């Protein structure tokens, strides 16, 4: 081993990671080379001085970190988000207003561009209707008037019924007529089919008779020839 190679191993020696084989080779070289021996000795001494001069200094204060547990995320957490805050505020105001109006039974009215608001019970439209009825049947009506009104109502009802019956009759008549027309069509189709079938039967009969004639003629010819 030469000096160059031995100095390559100095770092391994000083780092206490020198392999056994290399340590033996280095030892052999150091026995013969005073320069390398002195150099390595000084380096080892420097290392020892460092360790001696700078002992471990205790940390001035032990470190510790506080980890606060995260807040549970409920379904309502999104309400706290700033982007929904305005929306939530407006909705809440609207609900409160409506609830207040309902609580005080407020009546809102817009008539001819005039907005009116009143609180408490007000006569409803049902009352108006009853008033109208009262007008048509005043409390001071006589028996004859009531009878006449009933007769008129019955007459109106009868007329109404009659007109409905007429409508129904017309409707039924139309349906009957339509059905009769369809039946006639069906009968016509049946006759036509019968005619066609009859003609086919006749044609087939004619064909058969011609065949029979041919066969009879042949038989006649054959028998006459055999007799001869």
């Amino acid at each position: 081993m030469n000096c160059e190679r031995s100095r390559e191993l100095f770092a391994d020696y000083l780092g206490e990671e020198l392999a056994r084989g290399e340590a033996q080779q280095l030892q052999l070289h150091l026995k013969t080379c005073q320069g390398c021996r002195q150099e390595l000795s000084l380096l080892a001494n420097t290392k020892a001085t460092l360790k001696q001069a700078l002992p471990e200094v205790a940390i001035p204060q032990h470190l510790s970190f506080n980890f606060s547990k995260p807040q549970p995320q409920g379904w309502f957490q999104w309400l706290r988000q700033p982007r929904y805050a305005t929306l939530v505020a407006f909705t809440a105001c609207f609900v409160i207003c409506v609830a207040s109006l309902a609580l005080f039974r407020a009546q809102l009215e817009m008539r001819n561009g005039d907005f009116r608001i009143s609180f408490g019970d007000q006569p409803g439209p049902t009352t108006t209707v009853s008033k109208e009825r009262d007008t048509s049947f005043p409390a001071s009506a006589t028996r004859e008037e009531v009878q006449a009104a009933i007769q008129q109502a019955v007459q109106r009802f009868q007329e109404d019924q009659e007109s409905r019956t007429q409508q129904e009759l017309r409707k039924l008549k139309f349906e009957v007529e339509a059905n009769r027309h369809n039946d006639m069509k069906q009968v016509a189709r049946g006759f036509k089919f019968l005619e066609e079938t009859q003609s086919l039967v006749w044609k087939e009969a004619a064909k058969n008779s011609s065949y029979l004639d041919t066969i009879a003629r042949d038989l006649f010819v054959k028998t006459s020839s055999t007799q001869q």
Partner: protein
Amino acid sequence: MALVPLTDKDLAQRVVRGDGEAFNLLVGRWEQKLFSYCLRLTGDREDAFDVCQDTFVKAYEQIGQLQNHDKFSHWLFKIARNFCISHYREKRKFPRQEPDAQADDAAGLENLLSEDLQVRIDNAQRFEPAELRLIVERALEHLSFEQRETVVLKVFEGLKFTEIAEIANCPVSTVKSRLYLGLSELKKFLSGNERGAS
């Protein structure tokens, strides 16, 4: 039934699942070593403590990105290293003002020693511990950041070359070279054969 101590990997996995106390256990386990490492790199207690705190805060924030939980300590040292580099650059940008010679005894001693910092290693035993500490700290300041970091991780923290290479993100051969050159520089500075690089 024997209790099995939790490894860094177990604790790191618990931290990822949201267990803050597991992180405090990791802090308690590594704060001293990390502080020593930072102190030897920065050379200042307050800076070292700040770097230490920043390192743990960043580690907690980014532990989800740590893929191999076995290497939590290496990863921690790596974060601290980056903070120390930032600190080193700031220090170079804004060099520390030398304290007044009359300010206090320690500052006076430092100034006195700065006049003649060529100390023979053979005489190391004759110095008072405080004197020797100042001499060595000043000597370390003459190393490049990479050399100082390698010397600290190897000599004081006792890490393997492969582990240092992982932290410093460089090949093992580079780490060995930095250790050799760093110790050679320190040797030159301390033995007084020649003034160290400045």
